[in-house]
């Protein structure tokens, strides 16, 4: 028997002329010598001949090509299809709703204005002016026609105001009534109005409302800056000097110095608002400003409200003092009046403290500065030993491992129910669309 140089399955391919010409010739040569392969080839031919004995009739004449117009897919109404469509729509609605509603609620909450305060954070201030334009006090909110009656009301109430001023000066002796509203120039002239004691009753309230309308805006500013400096200590000194020169002070300071790490200092300083611009300029000049942000809060409404309550309390106190001076009641009544006077005085002092605090916030702007030294890496003076580093690495690795495990636990504790809900939803959706999808794919192919 000759050696087989062809695979058996190549004989079928040879019979079907599926080999390339060179291989076809090789197999043919081999077949001339190999009796065994000749017999296999003969068997394959006989099988093919046997198979050909099963013939089927040609396509019947009734088989016609489908008309193109009739072959267009027509979608007939089907309750089953409708139910699937509704189920799919419901799933999509649930998914979209669960995604969109929380975001919608968040956005509504975010756009709702705060009742008392308004923060201003410019998106893109002009590069040349930076934050200057925000520091200029904005115009009063009242329009000209609305202001005119208020002015008339104020003039008509002049006598009462003078009497009350006298009362306030004599009573309190503090000398700070009015004049400090708005530390910035321009606030003082109108600021007195807000500090006047108004007569009680409806007329007094109307006058107070009218006066509130002409009260200037009182705005507390605070600035956050990060400045990268080359020489840390001189820059810090310059900063402190600039604050002192402006009449401000350091409210808080902290510094950190780590070997082979840049020095860093966090300072919170208070500077008069009229000097804020110049102080900011000096701070910017210390080095490269990494970030700078100015925020503000309008406290006008709080101050006006506080002053109205203050006026009422003072008037109450005055009436009680008159009652005490008349001394027509019993001893118990007199003691009761004295307790009331003490309580009212306590309220007055508390409100005055609040008012002073608010006015101080307006008068002094808050500047939080982070000074960071430009980092210049140096060789560590004493490298840590290998054993210590290895131990530290193990400790760090263990902590990371525990942290990872805890992270997983917390993640699933926090999100497990939501994840389960989503898995269930996707599983349900897959169950619903699986069969239609399969039908669609099989029909397209």
């Amino acid at each position, binding site marked *: 028997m000759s050696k087989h140089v062809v695979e*058996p*399955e*190549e*004989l*079928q*391919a040879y019979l*079907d002329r*599926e080999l390339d010409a060179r291989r076809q010739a090789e197999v043919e040569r081999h077949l001339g010598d190999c*009796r*065994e392969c000749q*017999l*296999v080839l*003969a*068997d*394959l031919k*006989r*099988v*093919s*001949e*046997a*198979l*050909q*004995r*099963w*013939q*089927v*009739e*040609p*396509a*019947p004449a*009734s*088989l016609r*090509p*489908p008309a*193109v117009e009739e*072959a*267009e*897919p027509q979608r007939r109404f089907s309750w089953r299809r409708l139910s699937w469509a509704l189920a799919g729509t419901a799933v999509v609605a649930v998914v979209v709703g669960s995604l969109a509603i929380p975001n919608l609620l968040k956005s509504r909450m975010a756009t709702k204005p705060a009742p008392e305060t308004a923060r201003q954070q410019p998106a893109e201030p002009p590069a040349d002016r930076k934050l200057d334009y925000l520091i200029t006090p904005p115009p009063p909110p009242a329009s000209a026609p609305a202001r005119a009656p208020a002015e008339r009301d104020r003039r008509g109430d002049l006598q009462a105001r003078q009497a009350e001023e006298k009362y306030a000066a004599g009573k309190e002796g503090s000398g700070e009534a009015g004049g400090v509203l708005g530390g910035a120039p321009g606030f003082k002239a109108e600021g007195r109005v807000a500090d006047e004691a108004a007569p009680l009753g409806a007329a007094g309230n109307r006058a107070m409302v009218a006066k509130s309308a002409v009260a200037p805006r009182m705005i507390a500013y605070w600035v956050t800056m990060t400045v990268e400096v080359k020489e840390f200590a001189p820059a810090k000194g310059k900063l402190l000097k600039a604050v002192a020169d402006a009449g401000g002070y350091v409210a808080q300071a902290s510094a950190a110095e780590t070997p082979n790490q840049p020095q860093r200092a966090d300072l919170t300083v208070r500077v008069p608002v009229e000097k804020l611009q110049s102080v900011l300029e000096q701070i910017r000049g210390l080095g490269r400003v990494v970030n700078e942000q100015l925020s503000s809060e309008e406290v006008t409404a709080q101050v006006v409200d506080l002053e109205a309550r203050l006026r009422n309390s003072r008037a109450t106190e005055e009436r009680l003092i008159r009652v005490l001076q008349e001394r027509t009641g019993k001893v118990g009544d007199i003691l009761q009046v004295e307790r009331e006077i003490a309580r009212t005085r306590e309220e007055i002092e508390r409100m005055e403290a609040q008012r002073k605090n608010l006015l101080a916030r307006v008068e002094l702007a808050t500047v939080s500065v982070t000074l960071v030294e430009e980092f210049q890496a140096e060789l560590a003076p004493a490298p840590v030993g290998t054993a210590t580093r290895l131990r530290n690495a193990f400790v760090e690795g263990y902590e990371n491992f525990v942290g990872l495990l805890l992270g997983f636990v917390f993640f699933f504790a926090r999100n497990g129910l939501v994840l389960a809900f989503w898995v269930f939803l996707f599983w349900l959706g897959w169950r619903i669309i699986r069969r239609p999808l399969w039908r669609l794919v*099989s*029909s*397209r*192919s």
Partner: protein
Amino acid sequence: MSLRSDEALMLAFKDGEAPAFAELFARYKNPIYGYVRRRVGDPGRAEEITQDVFLALVQHRNGYEVTASFKTYLYRIAMNRIVSEHRRKKEDEPPAADPAAPGGDPAVVQQVREALAQLEPEQREIVLLREYQGLSYQEIAEVLKVPVGTVRSRLFRAKMALRDFLAPSGSERAGQ
């Protein structure tokens, strides 16, 4: 009949040339019917399925791209229709009886059918496409989505298995 290739005719039909489809139908109605007819016993049902195959061709003409030969595209549609039919009827084997089959001795035809029924479904499909439809190994590979080498080896094994039923002679005798 024009000399245009199948693919050119299908693209022309896709572009709205209705006679192109008529020519494709004329070329393939008998091969497809014969293929379906050997897989489905009922001649009437075979005719319906053949009609469905060409109907699907018309309905999905806009999705046709010349990524493979038209012939393999058409046979793949036919094969999927037959598989759906078998799945619908909960049967995977061709019916044993086919009294309407002409063209030969019914006993011989029955013997061939029974021999084919002994094969694995994958082998039987290849035998049908090669021996009766005359598809090349490459075309069979495209229809069944298997490598050409797989087609060649399966076909050889199927023919060897059929030899025991249909032609027990030759090498078998020589081996004895």
